[in-house]
């Protein structure tokens, strides 16, 4: 196993902040999505809340010290010399990429909505981005549930499913023989 050596588990306050922030973002997005067709004022209010949540996360991420769980997570594999990649590290990397894709999509949807509201930009882009976002959200939920279920199983289950260590020389040899 070679998880990112700079990352550590979040403390109680950090975890509360992350959960509260996730609640603010997802709750605001949910209301913005539901009120898209029903009430323009409610849609604008919840859209502003989405932008606020994104702004808060950006500021906290930029201000967090190196190695803090509040900093921006890594999207790259560890250097080649650090040995094989553990199953947890692979899961974390997939989660990080999923979260990054989701945040970019939500940011673009919220910003395009703001531009459409303030400078009267064409609303087609905003609508297209907003319609595509739920697919990513469901993928994010599915991954979170799947990884949680694997974590809850007895140790070694994930190993039996995926082989361990992932991307090991033995695994690569096994498949290259076929």
């Amino acid at each position, binding site marked *: 196993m070679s998880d990112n050596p700079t990352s550590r588990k979040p403390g109680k306050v950090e975890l509360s902040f992350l*959960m*509260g922030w*996730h*609640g*603010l973002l*997802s*709750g*605001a997005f*949910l*209301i913005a999505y539901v*009120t898209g067709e*029903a*009430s*323009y*004022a*409610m*849609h604008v*209010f*919840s859209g502003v*809340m989405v932008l606020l949540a994104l702004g808060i996360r950006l500021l906290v991420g930029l201000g967090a010290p190196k190695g803090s769980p509040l900093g921006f997570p890594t999207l790259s594999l560890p250097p080649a010399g650090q040995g094989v990649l553990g199953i947890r590290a692979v899961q974390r990397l997939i989660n990080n990429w999923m979260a990054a894709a989701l945040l970019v999509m939500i940011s673009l949807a919220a910003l395009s909505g703001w531009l459409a509201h303030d400078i009267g930009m064409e609303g087609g882009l905003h609508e297209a981005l907003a319609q595509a976002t739920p697919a990513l959200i469901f993928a994010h939920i599915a991954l*979170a*549930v799947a990884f*949680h279920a694997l974590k809850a199983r007895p140790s070694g289950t994930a190993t039996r499913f995926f082989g361990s260590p992932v991307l090991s020389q033995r695994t690569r040899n096994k498949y290259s023989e076929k």
Partner: protein
Amino acid sequence: MITRTVLMTLVFAVVIGCGAAAFALMNGGSSSISYASSFSRDGGGEGHDDHDD
């Protein structure tokens, strides 16, 4: 962890929903609440009968 995350989402959704509804009412914008009341005021829904027997 997942249960707590879902709960947080729902709690924030309710709070933001209430805030958004208050904002909509204060601004006189159309809201689902005003739409529902105007729908019932205009005689929408079941049980409406124009005939005097």
